[in-house]
C-alpha cells in the first residue's frame, strides 16, 4: 500500500497525475475502484510502476475543450457530476465487473444489442465514459454500426469532416491517428464510422482491421477499446466483429425481446466470449421530488407548470 501511495505522491509531485474532475464523487468512486482492483489481485511493484507510467502517459493526452453539461445531457452521456444517479451507478458496476473479469488487462469489448433500437450505442458510449472516469484509464469507442451510426452526432458542433473507420479501411493514406478523435470528455477517444455507410463485411476480416485494433490496444496499457456493433438479430457483421474482440456485452432492451431471442444471441456469441448481459432502459419512473410536494406544495406545483 505504501508503495502505491509513494507512487501516487510522486506522480502528484511531478504533475503527471491530474485529477480531472474537481468533484469529490468521482474521485471517491475512482479511488474505490482502484482499491477494489488492487485488493482483488496481487499487484507487483513492477506492475504499479508500469501503471504509474501509463497514467502519466494518459495524463498527457491532448484534450479539446470539454463538453458542457448541456451537450452531455443532450447526448445522454453520464458524467461524474450526476452523483448517485442510478444510471451512473449501473455503468460503474459494469465497469467494475469488466475490470474484475479481465483482471486489469485492457481488452476489446463489443457491445451489441439483441434488437435494433436496443440502446447498444448508448451503453457503449456511457461504458466508455465510465472507463474514462478513472484518471488512470482511457477508453476508445469505435463505431462499427455503419448502417445506423451514432457517434458522429457527438461532432455535430464541429463542421469539419472527420475521418472514420470506413475511410481508414478503404484509404491507405489515412493514418490511425487521423481517425481517433477526442470528443470533449477527458480520456475518451472516439473512432466514428466514417463517410461511407456500406462496406463489405470482408473489411472486418482484413488484416488491416486486425492491425488497427492491435495497435490501438498497445498504444496505452490502460486503454479499453469498446466497439459499438449493430444488433445481433439484424446484421451478420456482428458475428464477424465479435471474432475480433475479446469479449461481447449483450444489451437486452426493456420490454422488447423475447426469451427465445436472448437464447439465440447468447448461443451465437458463445459462453466463452459473453462477458455478460446488460438490461437496458428499465422504464422506472424518475424521482420527481414528491417530498417537496408535502414540504411546499405551492412551490412544487408552480415548478411543475413553469417552463
Amino acid at each position, binding site marked *: 500500500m505504501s508503495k502505491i501511495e509513494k507512487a501516487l505522491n510522486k506522480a502528484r509531485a511531478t504533475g503527471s497525475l491530474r485529477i480531472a474532475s474537481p468533484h469529490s464523487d468521482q474521485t471517491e468512486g475512482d479511488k474505490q475502484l482502484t482499491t477494489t482492483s488492487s485488493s482483488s489481485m496481487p499487484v507487483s511493484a513492477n506492475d504499479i510502476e508500469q501503471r504509474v507510467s501509463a497514467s502519466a502517459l494518459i495524463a498527457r493526452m491532448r484534450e479539446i475543450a470539454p463538453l458542457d453539461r448541456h451537450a452531455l445531457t443532450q447526448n445522454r452521456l453520464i458524467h461524474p457530476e450526476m452523483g448517485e444517479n442510478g444510471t451512473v451507478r449501473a455503468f460503474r458496476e459494469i465497469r467494475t465487473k469488466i475490470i474484475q473479469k479481465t483482471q486489469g488487462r485492457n481488452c476489446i469489448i463489443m457491445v451489441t444489442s439483441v434488437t435494433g433500437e436496443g440502446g447498444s450505442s448508448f451503453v457503449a458510449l456511457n461504458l466508455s465514459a465510465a472507463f474514462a472516469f478513472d484518471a488512470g484509464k482511457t477508453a476508445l469507442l469505435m463505431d462499427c454500426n455503419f448502417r445506423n451510426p451514432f457517434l458522429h452526432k457527438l461532432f455535430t458542433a464541429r463542421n469539419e469532416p472527420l475521418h472514420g473507420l470506413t475511410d481508414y479501411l478503404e484509404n491507405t493514406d489515412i493514418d490511425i491517428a487521423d481517425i481517433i478523435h477526442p470528443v470533449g470528455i477527458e480520456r475518451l477517444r472516439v473512432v466514428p464510422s466514417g463517410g461511407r455507410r456500406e462496406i463489405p463485411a470482408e473489411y472486418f476480416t482484413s488484416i488491416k482491421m486486425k492491425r488497427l485494433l492491435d495497435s490501438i490496444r498497445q498504444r496505452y496499457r490502460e486503454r479499453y477499446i469498446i466497439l459499438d456493433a449493430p444488433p445481433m438479430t439484424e446484421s451478420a457483421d456482428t458475428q464477424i466483429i465479435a471474432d475480433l474482440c475479446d469479449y461481447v456485452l449483450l444489451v437486452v432492451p426493456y420490454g422488447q425481446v423475447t426469451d427465445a431471442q436472448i437464447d439465440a444471441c447468447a448461443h451465437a456469441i458463445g459462453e466463452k466470449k459473453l462477458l455478460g448481459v446488460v*438490461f437496458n432502459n428499465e422504464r422506472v419512473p424518475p424521482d420527481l421530488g414528491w417530498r417537496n410536494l408535502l414540504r411546499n406544495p405551492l412551490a412544487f406545483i408552480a415548478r411543475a407548470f413553469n417552463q
Partner: protein
Amino acid sequence: MNLKPEYRLKVLINEVFNYRRAVVGLFVVVNVVALILGLVWPKGYSSSTTILVDDKKIIQPLMQGAAVATEVADRARLAREVIFGRKIMNQVLEDTGWMAVKRTPEEVGEIVEKIRKRTSIASLGKDIIKLEYRDDDAERAFKTTKKLAELFISESLGAKAAESQAAFDFIDKQTEEYHDKLLKAEEQLKEFRTANLDARPGSDVDISTRLNTLQTRIEQSAQDLKEAEVKKASLEKQLSGEAEVANVLSREGQYRTRIAELQSQLETLRLSYLETYPDIVRIKHQIEDLNEAIAEDRKARSAAKATGRVTVDDSVVNNPMYQQLKRDLSQAQITVDTLNARISEAKRQLQQELERGKRVHGGEATMSELTRDYQVNRDIYQDLLKRRENARVSMNLDREKQGLTFKIQEPALLPLEPTGLRFIHFVVGGLLAGILLPIGLIYAKLQAEPRIYVGQLISEKHKLPLLAIIPHMWSPADIQAVRREVGWLTLTTSITVLVVAAVSVLRLVKVI
C-alpha cells in the same frame, strides 16, 4: 408472461407510468362517458304486478270431460302477444296520459315502441305472470302497470269467451248439417223399405230356413208315400188270397169244446177223488147232457139239410179278416192320395220361396248401403250432439268467467325509490372502471406479450451473467418535462373527478 408477484407489481407500475397519458386519457374518457350515460339514463321507476292464472278451479274437476279448458302453454308469451297488441297499447296511451298532448302517428308509434321496450313480462312458475314496467315517472309507471294488468285480464277473458263461442258455433253448425243428412238417409231407407217389403235384414236367413223346412217336408212325405204304396200293394195281395165268407163253428163244436173242458176237469178230479165224489158225478152228468145236446143238434141239422133251410145257428158268416183287409186297403189308398197332394203343395211352396229369395238378394245390397249410411250419420250426429252440449257448457263456463280466471296476486304499487342503474352507480362505476380498465388493459398486454420486462429474469431463467440493470436515464430536462406532464395529467384527473363530483352534487339536489 409469468412473473413472480413482487416483479409483477413493479412492472405494472413501470408500465402504467410509461402509458401515463393513455391511462389518464382513458380515465377521463370512461368517466365522461359514464357521466353522460348516467345523466341520460332513464331514471327507472319500476312497478310490477303478478297475475295468478288459475284454470284449476273447483269447476274443472267437476266438468271433467264435459268441458274443455283452454290450454295455455306459455303464458308469458301469450301475455306478451296480448299486451303488446295495438288494442291494449292504445288503451294504455289513452288512460295514462301519454295522449294528453296531440301527437302524430309517428310519435305514437315511437311511444308504443318505448312502452314495449320498458315492459317485461315473465312467467314465474307455471301459473304466475309477472308484469313489470319501468318509467322515469313513478306515477306513470304505477298507472301503466296497473292498466296493463287490467287490460290484459279483460282482454284474455274476452278472447277466451270468443274462442269458446266460436267453437260452439262451429259444432252447432256441424250438428245441423248432420241432422239434415240423417233425415235424408232415414227418408231414403223408408222409401226403399216400402218398395221392398221383403227386403228386411235377415230375410235371406228366413228364406233359407223355410227352404230347408220345405225340402225336409217333401222328403218326409215322399218317404211316407213310398211306405203307403208298399202297404197298399201288400194289402191288395193279401186281399186276393182271402175268402169273402167263412164258416163259423157250429153249436156242436161249442158243445164238444165244453165236453173236452169238462173231461179235463174230470180227469183232474179223478186223480184225487173217488168216482163217487159229488163233483165227479156232476161233471159226468154234465158231459152226458152235452152229449145229448149234440145228438139233438145233429138231428136238427140233418132235418134242416133235408128241407134245405138254413138255420141261424148253423150259418155261414162273412169273413172278418177279409173285411179288415178291405178296410185297411181303403185307408192306405187315402194315405197315398193325401201324401201326393202334400208333396205337390210343398213343391209349389218351394218354388215360391226360391223366387222370393232371388228377389230379396237383389234388394239387400242397396238396403245394407242405405243402412250403413244411416248408421254412420246417426253415430256422428249423436257424437256431435254430445260435443255440442260440451261446447255449450264450455262456452257458458267462459261466459260466467268460471273456466280460466285471472287474479291479481300482487297489485302494482306506486314506486317510491327508483330501481335499476342509478346515477350514483354510473358515477362510482365510471371512477372504478376509469382506474381499473387502463390498468387491466396494461396487465392484459403484459400477460399476452412474452417479452422481458424484468432484468433479474435474465440471470434466473437463462443463467446468463447479468452485469447491470440500467435504468432509463432521465436528464433534468426530462424530469422537468415529466413533472410538468404529470402535473397536467394530475390536473386533468382532478378536474375530471371534480366535474363528476359537481355533477353528482347537482344531481343530488335535483338541479339536473
